[in-house]
């Protein structure tokens, strides 16, 4: 059974700082997704990572995938308050269309 773990689950950081968050998964998969959710809102797709070594960047966020280590990272550069949200990673269960989500990481960026 595929398990997806995110850490940390809560992060409070100051504006301007950098930080990396992690997403580990338990079985082979070559597709990993990052989503953002604002409080009381729906989920918005951030990145789709489809192969080992894939790296995607959007603004102050950069995501990467290491399928051999079963690890994805989401790096935050020079955080700003607008990045405050909950970030989910999700992994496809090998050979199926099921997408398993991690518990999410709640990020608070303080001025």
């Amino acid at each position, binding site marked *: 059974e595929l398990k997806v773990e995110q850490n940390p689950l809560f992060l409070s950081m100051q504006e301007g700082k950098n930080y990396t968050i992690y997403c580990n998964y338990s079985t082979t998969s070559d597709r990993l997704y990052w989503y953002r959710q604002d409080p009381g809102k729906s*989920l918005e797709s951030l990145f789709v990572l489809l192969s080992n070594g894939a790296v995607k960047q959007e603004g102050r966020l950069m995501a990467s995938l290491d399928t051999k280590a079963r690890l994805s990272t989401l790096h935050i550069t020079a955080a700003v308050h607008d990045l405050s949200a909950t970030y*989910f990673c999700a992994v496809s269960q090998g050979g199926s269309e099921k997408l398993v989500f991690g518990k999410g990481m709640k990020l608070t960026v303080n001025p």
Partner: protein
Amino acid sequence: NAGVTQTPKFRILKIGQSMTLQCTQDMNHNYMYWYRQDPGMGLKLIYYSVGAGITDKGEVPNGYNVSRSTTEDFPLRLELAAPSQTSVYFCASSYRGGSSPLHFGNGTRLTVT
């Protein structure tokens, strides 16, 4: 484009009642999903469909049923509602299943008392 539309937005049910959560998408996506979100637990897959007439169970299907008679619609049926079904329910769709990101609806907040 409306995207993925869920109705209702909020609903309160009494224990034992039944209801249908509606989901429709106008993007001609083949793949559709129902997730529930509980605080601190991420999203759990209830059911999914890879096309009209085809559905399959996810991680937490018990107490729910689905049907997919058209490409656009994927309703979720709750029979005999229980307090454990209190949650926020999200419907999502995608173009090519796991190879494309999911587009989520705005969610239905359901309370069972």
